[in-house]
């Protein structure tokens, strides 16, 4: 799989309204199978695959909901208007493999789906069948490639993609499907099925199994009654509500399946309070203290305000992802509403959400491959820890020998004058009056040197030096870690700017369609990804034991090579490109061929550097992931 570069598709509308540009993100593929296997050669299969399972989100789409015919020609999607038969929009999809086909385009709430115009019936079934008969569980894998800005053509470092990005609609749909399944299999109401599933953390298998083995017990644990209890009314039909202690007519009261009657106002208050207490409301029970019967969504909807209903249903929805902690998690990206479903036992924890956020599925930190989660945790903790401050003070300040005030030396010679007017030598902390030519003058102190060379270390000095070494080391790695992070963020900005302005400008200036400028985006995506990897290698380096000399050397060599390649690439993508952008277009307007030649130079340089950098980083990542085992432990 593509290792470096965001999994994102850009679609540009370039006909008619050139000023419009749409960002299209691939949202998900419906199913990702963990097994990886060979490519499927049949173009027909691939076509149908693409058609049936891909969804795009088109931002700023004017028509929110529509269904039209579409035609794909040379990677450009033309969308026809039903009524007039006249095409109204054209989209270009980069990296599309299916170059020519016709289909139906459908957009719902800004999400575009393209279906094959093919009446062989149910796509889902087709996919399943093909998957089975080819013994090929993994062609979604391949399918993934086509929609990427595929910077990674080499497959050697590819990894299985073992997760699925879920959007809200999918989650809700899956949840409803699970409920339906349980409802049908166990012949219980939807509300009961929901309560049951919630109890078993939305594990359908587990719920079924428990139900079929010990239905009695499960019913008791979960609070589901076999039958609704019918209350036999007494003569007067007047009952005291045991919450507010007021008397009510039976008909004005309500009960869950257990038949414990409470007045409607008390029900409303009770349920609404529980909902506002948090997600625990999903475990709502009958208010009667000795009654274990569960109160489901039907009762909630009957009594509470729309706002509370919404809250409840939201808790229910969120619990579907949160309860399945081992299988699904919310994307931690800011403001992101997607969830990630993960297939256990995968080799890599790195996950890219539909929002573009890359994170580690295991520890939910930003993606940190090739460094492991433990190292990252230690590093992150260290970066925030107060202990670093203490170490800093210890290492960078000395106390005045007379008044003990802590002093930081920021410049100048060793002759110190404290606020208490005491003159002393910074090195040996002795009185300055005892210093002069014979002790080394203003810039050195023989007393200090003599003591040091004689190995007579002051205990305090020893601690201080140790602390300083330690701090120096940390500062070294931390600084580089931070620099790469900053540089990465800046690169993301640059890429955005290039995508929004630069490419158009270049394409205007050099008369090339933007499709041919993909290598520029590729280069920038490579830079962003490499900065990320490089950043984490500094955390790795910090924790590499100093005793492992050979490994350290090997690591530093690999890191150095990768870093210098990246610097060259970054330089080219930043500085060289700027030259092309800045140059006065008019100057070359009459000499069209020269311009092309110039861009060719840029292209070959960029493509070359992108490739080299990727190779260096791949070997760096591989080496770190196998614990630098290519060189032996000393």
């Amino acid at each position, binding site marked *: 799989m593509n290792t470096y570069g965001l999994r994102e598709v850009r679609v540009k509308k370039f006909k008619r309204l050139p000023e419009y540009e749409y960002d299209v993100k691939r949202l998900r593929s419906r199913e990702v199978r963990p097994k990886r296997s060979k490519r499927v050669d049949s173009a027909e299969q691939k076509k149908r695959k693409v058609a049936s399972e891909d969804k795009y989100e088109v931002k700023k789409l004017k028509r929110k909901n529509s269904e039209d015919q579409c035609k794909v020609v040379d990677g450009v999607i033309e969308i026809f208007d039903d009524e007039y038969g006249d095409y109204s929009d054209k989209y270009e999809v980069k990296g599309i493999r299916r170059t020519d086909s016709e289909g139906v385009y459908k957009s719902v709430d800004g999400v575009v789906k393209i279906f094959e115009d093919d009446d062989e019936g149910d796509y889902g079934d087709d996919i399943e069948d093909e998957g089975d008969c080819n013994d090929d569980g993994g062609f979604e894998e391949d399918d993934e490639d086509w929609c990427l800005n595929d910077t990674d053509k080499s497959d050697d470092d590819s990894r299985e993609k073992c997760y699925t990005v879920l959007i809200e609609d999918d989650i809700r749909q899956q949840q409803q499907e699970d409920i339906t399944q349980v409802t049908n299999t166990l012949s219980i109401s939807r509300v009961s099925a929901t309560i049951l599933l919630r109890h078993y953390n939305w594990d359908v298998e587990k719920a079924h199994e428990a139900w079929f083995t010990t239905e009695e017990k499960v019913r008791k644990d979960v609070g589901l009654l076999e039958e609704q209890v019918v209350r036999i009314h007494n003569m007067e039909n007047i009952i005291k509500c045991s*919450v*507010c202690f*007021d008397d009510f007519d039976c008909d004005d009261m309500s009960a869950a399946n257990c038949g414990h009657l409470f007045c409607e106002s*008390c029900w409303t*208050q009770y349920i609404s*309070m529980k909902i506002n207490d948090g997600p625990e409301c999903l475990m709502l029970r009958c208010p*009667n*203290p000795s009654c274990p019967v569960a109160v489901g969504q039907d009762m909630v909807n009957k009594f509470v305000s729309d706002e509370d209903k919404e809250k409840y249903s939201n808790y229910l929805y969120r619990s579907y992802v949160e309860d399945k902690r081992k299988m699904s998690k919310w994307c931690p990206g800011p403001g992101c509403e997607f969830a990630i479903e993960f297939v256990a036992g995968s080799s890599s924890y790195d996950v890219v959400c539909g929002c573009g956020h890359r994170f580690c599925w295991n520890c939910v930190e930003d993606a940190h491959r090739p460094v492991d989660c433990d190292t990252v945790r230690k590093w992150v903790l260290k970066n925030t820890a107060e202990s670093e401050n203490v170490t800093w003070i210890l290492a960078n300040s000395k106390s005045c020998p007379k008044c003990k005030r802590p002093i930081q030396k920021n410049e100048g010679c060793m002759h110190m004058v404290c606020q208490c007017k005491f003159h002393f030598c910074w090195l040996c902390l002795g009185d300055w009056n005892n210093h002069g030519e014979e002790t080394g003058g203003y810039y050195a102190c023989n007393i200090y040197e003599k003591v040091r060379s004689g190995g007579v270390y002051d205990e305090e000095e020893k601690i201080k030096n140790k602390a300083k070494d330690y701090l120096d080391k940390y500062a070294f790695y931390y600084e580089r870690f931070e620099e790469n992070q900053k540089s990465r963020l800046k690169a993301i900005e640059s890429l955005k700017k290039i995508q929004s302005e630069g490419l158009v400008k270049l394409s205007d200036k050099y008369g090339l369609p933007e499709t041919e400028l993909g290598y520029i985006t590729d280069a920038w995506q490579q830079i962003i990804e490499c900065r990320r990897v490089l950043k984490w290698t500094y955390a790795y380096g910090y924790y590499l034991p100093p005793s492992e000399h050979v490994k350290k050397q090997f690591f530093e060599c690999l890191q150095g090579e990768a870093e210098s390649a990246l610097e060259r690439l970054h330089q080219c993508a930043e500085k060289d490109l700027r030259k092309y952008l800045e140059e006065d277009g008019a100057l070359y307007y009459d000499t069209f061929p020269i311009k092309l030649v110039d861009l060719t130079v840029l292209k070959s340089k960029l493509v070359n550097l992108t490739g080299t950098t990727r190779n260096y980083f791949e070997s760096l990542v591989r080496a770190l992931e196998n614990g630098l085992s290519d060189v032996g432990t000393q």
Partner: protein
Amino acid sequence: MQASRARLFKEYKEVQREKVADPDIQLVCDDTNIFKWTALIKGPSETPYEGGVFQLAFAVPEQYPLQPPQVRFLTKIFHPNVHFKTGEICLDILKTAWSPAWTLQSVCRAIIALMAHPEADSPLNCDSGNLLRSGDLRGYQSMARMYTKLAAMPKKG
């Protein structure tokens, strides 16, 4: 606010009626504030608390009965689930397992039941909990008995 007041007023009336019915519990409402109650409960028989009279203080929240009242012992008591200094009580129905159908009266009954059946695994009074957990029933009983005699029984003479 009005709902809780109305409900407490009804409970007050019930209490007047039930006084005879349950001689172990005597619930008294504060003269000026219906949200403050005190109760005198008798230590259950066949326990080290037998013969003692323990005073409880109730602070009822405005959301009552949707939220539980806060209850603590005013009388010193040696019991695994009661804080020795503050009198705070660790009882599930006063926290998560609260139901709006509970009353102050039934809370008192639950506390009497707790006195008879201490839960040594979730102790607020660790010394007492440890005695029970290590199987030193005699040690626990004599300590509890001593404090009952000291704090919960009328002084002789």
